[in-house]
């Protein structure tokens, strides 16, 4: 079971996880491990106070690229399920931007796949951040942080 959701509306990652797990995952005992990553908007970047962000993306290619990543990771680590949810549009500090969750039989695969999905997403999925600073300056983020 694989699911990708690129959305403009804010979301609660824990509620999303609970709902998706309840509705989509079969009630069997295959998955001994669940690994979850939630990325949230910071109110600072590169030493400046950030009060808002706009996330642009490439509709169509974004979903396609994420689905490819999820499918490749699911095969490589024999995942039982994988979920990627990503915000676009106007985002405020403390709002979740991204949720990555994977289910597998054992924890090593779950941890590794979750991290791989997240890191690969940051370098290949066509999203771009434009942030607004507290002094009114608007700027494009030109690189990812190291980790």
């Amino acid at each position, binding site marked *: 079971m694989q699911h990708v959701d690129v959305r403009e509306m804010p979301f609660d990652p824990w509620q999303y996880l609970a709902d998706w797990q309840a509705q989509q995952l079969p009630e069997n005992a295959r998955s001994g491990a669940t690994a979850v990553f939630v990325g949230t908007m910071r109110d600072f970047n590169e030493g400046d106070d950030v009060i808002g962000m706009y996330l*642009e993306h490439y509709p*169509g*290619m974004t979903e396609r690229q994420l689905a490819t990543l999820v499918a490749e990771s699911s095969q490589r680590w024999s995942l039982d399920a994988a979920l990627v949810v990503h915000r676009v549009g106007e985002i405020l500090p403390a709002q979740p*931007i991204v949720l990555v969750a994977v289910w597998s039989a054992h924890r090593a695969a779950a941890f590794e796949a979750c991290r791989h999905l*997240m890191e690969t997403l940051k370098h290949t*999925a*066509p*999203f771009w951040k434009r942030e607004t600073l507290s002094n009114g300056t608007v700027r494009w983020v*030109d690189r990812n942080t190291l980790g």
Partner: protein
Amino acid sequence: MPIKVLFFASLRERIGQSQRLLETDTPLTLQEVWQRSSGETHLPDNVLRSVNQTYVDANSLVQPGDEVAFFPPVTGG
């Protein structure tokens, strides 16, 4: 069928347009697509490119009817 060219984020602002249609009956190299759509002669190494929503290298050939996109390094997550 024209080639549809898209520009995103800071590159869109630099080029001054988000979309361009190139009329052609024959395949073009990605370099030719860049030159005819952006007005700039050289495709910079740090500009990413996709054809029909899949990443391609700078030497790719583009067919009439294809959708090409040029964009800066991505910063999601």
